[in-house]
């Protein structure tokens, strides 16, 4: 299938709706071809190695004031006709949809980053070789993780005359090295597979695993913390899904109050879908663009699709997703901006001793240097929301925690459970420092990423140790 065929298929689906549903029927269709591959390793060997070449059609129709959606993988003429017929039939049997916002009008598609063809067509050998480099660089420690590549080619068309086409690629690598039950991690998301250095990541994970050995248990309580980018990515993800989601905002389930200084002045959060190789339009065909959600501590916006935008008297911000009527529009390419003027990398102190490999970059070292007593946290795990409005979250640390005393990492600590309100932890006066460089972290789904620098917070509420 070529780009032309995806565009033609999307147009064909819209035309079928017009033919079978009448001239008043409104329709939008997205046709996406995907080549996804993931090479997974454990116990330092590749144990799962998968790829898929798929095509999918998403269709939404609005007819006689009623709305239904459908999808499928069958793109033959009969398959498309069946999809259109059953979606139209479903719409006619539905109750009226008074909130239907109408279709996106014709609009130019924003420019997107050029696709790296080598990544789009990467072979399994190339992923395996990066895994091999990761394993070799771990110096004999047991390793586990994955290397993945993804390529999506997608066309949009609607019956209002709007159409768009785009491609996206992503390469990601995420791995751990293990020593006596202590794990160290390294992960990256990139636009080019060639930007992923398995050896560099493996060495980093191994250094952290070595530094995580022989952990001690600390009592629960409030601790000053330095979060590395992997941990900050979890903050961004929960802020996005539960806070900057226009549906949850309209339902008063979000903490977000646009115009209010809800965060520390150091916090600026931007959703930047075209900051990486992403599709240039959303599920409704609206062009995607950067959206500042928090500017110097003041909440500026929440994300909208056409439905939540219409309800709020605002425009769509280009965040429609399939299933969005239920889950709401979600920003999925968030970047927490790094510190503009420092802390300069040069002021960071090297950590020495048994925990010497805990700090793997100068930004984090600089933040650690300012902590009298606190914890360095690499990663957060299994975070779940206790209350969406206050965004109180519980979860655990993972892949390395260390005690910091007088600006130096002194020893490894066993994992801790926390229960904390994310907006409160990032509130005015709570951010004591940011690294300069935002590091892009992959999500579980390709095309979704979270970019963050290391972050120093005044307080984090740990509510339990590894023993309970």
């Amino acid at each position, binding site marked *: 299938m070529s780009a032309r065929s995806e565009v033609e298929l999307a147009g064909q689906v819209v035309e079928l709706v017009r033919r079978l549903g009448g001239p008043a029927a409104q329709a939008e269709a997205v046709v996406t071809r995907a080549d996804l591959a*993931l090479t997974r*390793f*454990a*116990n330092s*060997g*590749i*144990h*799962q*190695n*998968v*790829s*898929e*070449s*798929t095509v999918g059609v998403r269709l939404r129709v609005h007819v006689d004031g009623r709305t*239904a*959606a*459908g*999808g499928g*993988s*069958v793109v033959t003429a009969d398959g498309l006709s*069946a999809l259109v017929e*059953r979606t139209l039939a*479903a*719409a006619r*049997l*539905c*109750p009226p949809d008074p909130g239907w916002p109408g279709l996106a009008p014709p609009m130019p598609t924003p420019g997107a980053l050029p696709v790296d063809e080598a990544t789009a067509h990467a*072979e*399994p*050998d190339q992923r*395996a070789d990066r*895994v091999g480099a990761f394993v070799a660089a771990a110096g004999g420690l*047991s390793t*586990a*993780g*994955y290397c*993945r590549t993804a390529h999506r080619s997608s066309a949009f068309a609607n019956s209002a005359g709007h159409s768009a086409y785009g491609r996206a690629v992503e390469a990601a690598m*995420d791995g*751990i090295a293990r020593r006596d039950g202590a794990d160290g*991690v390294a992960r990256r998301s990139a636009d080019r597979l060639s930007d992923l250095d398995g050896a560099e990541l493996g060495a980093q994970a191994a250094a952290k695993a070595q530094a995580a050995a022989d952990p001690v248990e600390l009592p629960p309580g409030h601790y000053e913390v330095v979060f590395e980018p992997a941990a900050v990515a979890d903050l961004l993800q929960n802020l996005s899904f539960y806070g900057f989601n226009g549906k949850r905002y309209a*339902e*008063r*389930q979000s903490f977000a109050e646009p115009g209010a200084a809800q965060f520390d002045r150091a916090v600026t959060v931007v959703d930047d879908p075209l900051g990486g190789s992403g599709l240039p339009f959303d599920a409704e065909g609206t062009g995607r663009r950067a959206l500042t959600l928090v500017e110097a501590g003041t909440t500026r916006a929440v994300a909208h699709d056409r439905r939540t935008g219409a309800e709020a008297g605002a425009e769509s911000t280009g965040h429609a997703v399939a299933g969005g*009527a*239920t889950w709401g529009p979600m920003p999925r390419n968030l970047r927490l901006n790094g510190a503009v003027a420092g802390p300069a990398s040069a002021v960071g102190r090297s950590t020495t001793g048994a925990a010497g490999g805990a700090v793997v970059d100068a930004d984090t070292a600089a933040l650690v240097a300012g902590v009298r007593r606190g914890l360095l946290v690499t990663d957060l*795990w*299994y975070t*779940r*929301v*206790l*209350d969406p*409005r*206050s965004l109180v979250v519980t979860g655990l640390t993972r892949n390395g925690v260390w005690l910091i005393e007088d600006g130096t990492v002194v020893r490894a600590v066993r994992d801790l*459970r926390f*229960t904390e309100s994310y907006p409160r932890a990032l509130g005015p006066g709570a951010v004591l420092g940011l690294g300069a460089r935002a590091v892009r972290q992959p999500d579980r789904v390709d095309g979704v990423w979270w970019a963050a620098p290391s972050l120093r917070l005044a307080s984090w509420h740990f*509510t*339990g140790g*590894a*023993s*309970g």
Partner: protein
Amino acid sequence: MTEFDAATAAVQAALDAGARYADARVMHRRYESMTARNGDVEELTQDESIGLGVRALVGASWGFHAVPDLSDAAARDAGRRATRTAMASARVPGPSVDLVPVEAVTASWASGCQIDPLGVALSDKGDLLVDVTRTMAEHGADLAEGLYQIWDTTKWFVSSEGHRIDQRIRECGGGISATSIGDGETQRRSWPSYRGQYGTTGWELVESLDLAAHAAQIAEESRALLTAPPCPAGETDLILGGEQLALQIHESVGHAIELDRILGWEAAFAGTSWLDLAQLGSLRYGSELMNITIDPTIPGALGSFGFDDEGSPAVKRDAVRDGRWVGVLAGRDSAAMASLDYGGSVRADGWARLPMVRMTNVGLEPGPHTLEEIIAATDDGVLMDLNRSWSIDDKRLNFQFGCEVGWEIKKGRRGRMLRNPTYTGIGPLFWRSMDMLSSETVSWGTPNCGKGQPGQVGHTGHPAAPARFRNVRVGVSA
């Protein structure tokens, strides 16, 4: 070309390209869901997907490829690509791979279904959700939500050992939730479970839930929770309702006994397990009341099937017997690696995904008591039910759960409603503290179990009944 023909062609092409074993699954799935909010249908989706996934074993290395095209040429190309990928895996080899023997059978199987859920008129299904969400809104809910989901899946499985199995599994279920929003927080009540109860059944399951009969009550309770006293912090006797205990089993037993986790295959993502195979058969997991089975043969339970996605027949096994750990969830390759003689718990969530170790129906056998007897026997404690949040560490030891509602238990009687109830603990210590267990078992269905990379969503079942646990830490808050 039939679905069996396509699967056979893929397997043969994989063998021709150098695989020593191959299997292929063709899956056809129809999915329908509807959500409603505050008396309006919010979203109706109907999907249909068909494709083929083929798995090839070359030496000690696996490869997998999936395509949505069932033509002979596409199936053969998929088989060749799976083998080529397996050869690439050999660049970073793992230990040798064996498969525990499974009789190669030709068989058909179908789940029970009295009322075809896709045959029920959309208007009837829509009216149900519209009516119950309107009732909840009228009784004080700020957000009144209802949904149902239906999956109708047919699979055709072929292996190079001679398996030829087709299965049709129909699953459905639904539920309702009422959310009330206060100044600083939200409170939610659901029936019978947040996002519903599910099984391998027809629409009769949704009818049996009698959503309309519970709509007003849960709406009023969600409103009342906003002003209820908070769950006190401290150690106390904890009584869990069956729905919450089902998730407790899922998270702290079901995942812990997955053999792929025990072997380290999920170390970087889902995690490992605190269980050590050397202790299989001897480790005390819980009290003597704790009898956990792995049973994909339970009619109507969400984790039921005739054969798993490696062609192993559904068989009931013990996982924990009289409190002692005795069994695992395994696949053919992981079982061989662990020197066990059974697999039977490997499934994929669709044709484009690799089959992997998944829970089937993992649940507690009934105990000797009733919930009312447990309450009457409790002098001072808290009863909690319906899960609201869940979190557990990567070894499946340290957990914290939040529930929608708690009730104070004083001198054997149920008292005030409590808001924001949470409890936390360490898996084996918690299970060893279980001293009363009800006989009122329900096979709860969990249709959202995430695992694997790329991610897969599993459908699992968990027979569970109310139970009491002693000296549990409750009331954890920010």
